[in-house]
């Protein structure tokens, strides 16, 4: 039980379709997933035991980078994957400086799951 809760993957994207599809894929891959429609919603919920984050960069109120930066200020940094359909050099470099990985949309499944598998273990199948 305790082990499973540490393996939650939190996903944050303001596009409902992208969010739902990402949740669908990660669940199909065997992970436990928490989905949030904005950086604020995620910060407000402040879910414990999050193994890693998959965050969209282009969101209206707070960008993915800003969110990752906020999380860096916390006690311990959560590994994060920043996703974007317009990955510029500047964004990638800033992400790297914050210790986050980046991935272009549409997401390559292997790259995505490799990142998630590094930080979270699939939930025990029911």
């Amino acid at each position, binding site marked *: 039980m305790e082990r499973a809760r540490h393996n939650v993957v939190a996903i944050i994207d303001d*596009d409902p*379709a*992208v969010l*739902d*599809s*990402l949740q*669908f*894929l*990660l*669940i*199909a*891959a065997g992970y436990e997933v928490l989905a949030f429609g904005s950086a604020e919603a995620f910060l407000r919920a402040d879910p414990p035991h999050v193994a890693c984050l998959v965050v969209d*960069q*282009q969101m*209206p109120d707070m*960008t993915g980078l800003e969110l990752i930066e906020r999380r860096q200020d916390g006690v311990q940094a959560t590994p994060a994957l920043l996703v974007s*359909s*317009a990955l510029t050099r500047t*964004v990638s470099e800033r992400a790297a400086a914050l210790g986050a990985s980046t991935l272009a*949309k*549409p*997401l390559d*499944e292997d790259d995505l799951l490799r990142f998630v598998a590094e930080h979270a273990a699939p939930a025990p199948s029911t």
Partner: protein
Amino acid sequence: MAKVVSSGNENAATADRVLARLRLAAIVESSLDAIVAKDLNGIVTDWNAAAEAMLGYKAEEIIGRPITTIIPPERHDEEATILDRVRRGERLVVFETIRRHKNGRIVPVALTISPIRDDAGRIIGVSKIGRDLTEHREQQRQLAELQAELIHVSRINDMAHMVSALAHEINQPLTAITNYANGLRRMLSAGRTQGVEQALERVAEQATRAREIIQRLRNLMQKGKTEQRPEDMRETIEEAAALSRAAAPASEPPALQVQVDDDAATGVIDRIQIQQVLLNLMRNAAEAMQDVSAPRLSVRAQRDGDMIRVSVVDTGPGLPEDVRARLFQPFVTTKATGMGVGLSVCRTIIEAHGGEIGAEDASGGGTVFRFTVPAADASQHPRC
């Protein structure tokens, strides 16, 4: 003796009249405008060289024949009305009409018509001075063509500005489709089928979403002929906003508010062209607000008499002083990569709709651009 003197005077007067007549004839003959006279029965009595050049008949061919020879049948009524007006003593009638060349070609002409009187002041005929408008019409047509071309080119320019933004817009549904497809493959290979149908439905939805974005883009690229008809203002504005939203240069797109009043819901517009105007104004606003924190953009449609007034308000730095007076002239720009055609194209489009466009400082700082287009139910709202 006295008789001789008197006779000499008479001779001199006659000679003067003859000279005057000859001078007049020379002027008429050398005029670049066609000059034609006819009697009150509509029979041609005079015909100068320019008339021959314009309509193909030689003077000797047409003098003595009815003027209707050169008037297309559907314009015979018009001729009768004009004759009536001249008979009633109207001094000058100017109008544009068409005539028929001897070879059958229709010639657009501007006519000036006036009565001919005898020494006693009675009207005995009608003179017509005609100017060939063919070249003028051709110039007008070319001008309209050039304008259409400029509108099209500027639209392509808008598209170029939006390419990366639109790539992002289309990437979103593609991302969703890719994720669903990969998830579905995993489920099916694990022998699980619960939720498969629902996921497939979502895939179809997202494919539709991508197709709609492409369709919108394709519509905008189209050259097609312009057509003004009743269109939903809210949809028109929101579609344009969707196209421009992600086009914001900064990572932070301006917060957008759209408000359409109930009595401004339907405008008689060329939808694509008005979207082009909106895109230009929204792009200008986004560009102006590039370095502004918390940029806001609001678009409002309100009733104004027979018209709908659309305001696009930004919270940018305001109009640069040196462009204010020449804002809507072509090639006026303060941007390193600007062509300066955006606003001039906006004006061309709005004027083709019978509306007006202008800019002023917004009350809370920033700039407001306003334009008007006809409302669909104009007659029910008399301007007061």
